[in-house]
């Protein structure tokens, strides 16, 4: 087995955002289920939160290629 250990770093960096994005969308689904009329407002907030939480995984991906 051979390969690039930087990719493992990317895998590790994806854990946190993965959990975070799951929590964000869980909260979004909860909110919409309780108050369907708030969907439009919640949607942009959820996507914003998703984008911010995702940043760390993207860093990991890019750095995996930078430090190879």
């Amino acid at each position, binding site marked *: *087995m*051979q*390969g*690039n250990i930087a*990719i493992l770093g990317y895998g590790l960096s994806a854990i946190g955002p993965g959990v975070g994005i799951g929590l964000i969308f869980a909260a979004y689904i909860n909110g919409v289920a309780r108050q369907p009329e708030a969907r*439009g*407002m919640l949607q*942009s907030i959820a*996507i*914003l939160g*998703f*984008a*911010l939480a*995702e*940043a760390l995984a*993207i*860093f990991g*991906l*890019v750095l995996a*290629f930078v430090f*190879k």
Partner: protein
Amino acid sequence: MSLNVLGSLATATGGGYESPTTADFYQPLLNDGPFAITRPAVVMMLSVGLIAWWLIATTKRAAIIPSKGQWVTEGIYGFIRNGVARDIIGSKDFLRFVPLLFSMFVLILVNNLFGVIPPVQFPTMSRIGFPIALTAVVYVVYHFIGIRRVGPRVYFKSLVPAGLPGWIVPFIFFLEVITFFVTRPLTLALRLFGNMFAGHMLLLLFITGGEFMVIHGGFGLKIAGAGSFALAFVLTIFEALIEFLQAYIFTLLAATYIAGSLADEH
């Protein structure tokens, strides 16, 4: 970054599987070096021409009862104007920024969708230069309007929320400066780049890997190769979704940063 299971199998059957690398994304068509005309550059020019043609054609004879094209254009425009600009920036001065946000959204959307549309099939934003250029525009805009509104002294002062204990102010100031001047533009550019790059890499891996398994593999690998192709189809549809979402997110974040500079704390 090599697919070693496939690689070792391939060496057993003669000839190796070359897994896609970052080098596959640099495709000069004319010349080489810093002034090369590359494939993403051609795609970008194509997209600009296409967008200009589409927007002019659908809005030149705008009617009260819209044609189909005008309906689509108005739908996208309304989505950015009301769904992003007005909701995020606020109804007072969002109109100034609608042209910027709209052109960014359309440009990114078309360029991203070119990543899965067959004759082109190259996401421009998978070359880091293009997201950096777009981010530079957003970066200049949100700092410029913030500084013009209150002057540089108040702008930097307002990075730190009021009412903090004195000893903590330098740390918060440092963190906020990093956020405003480094993290925000960096993540804005890298998010778009990373999503497009990783998505296209995935498609490349599944399609070239599937091809290799079908052509060079034994019976079992041929079936796996067919599965790989099927997954590539599914991922293409998923990619189309991601591409739309990333264009939306870029516009949304640009609007958020602009709104932050216009907000009263600043």
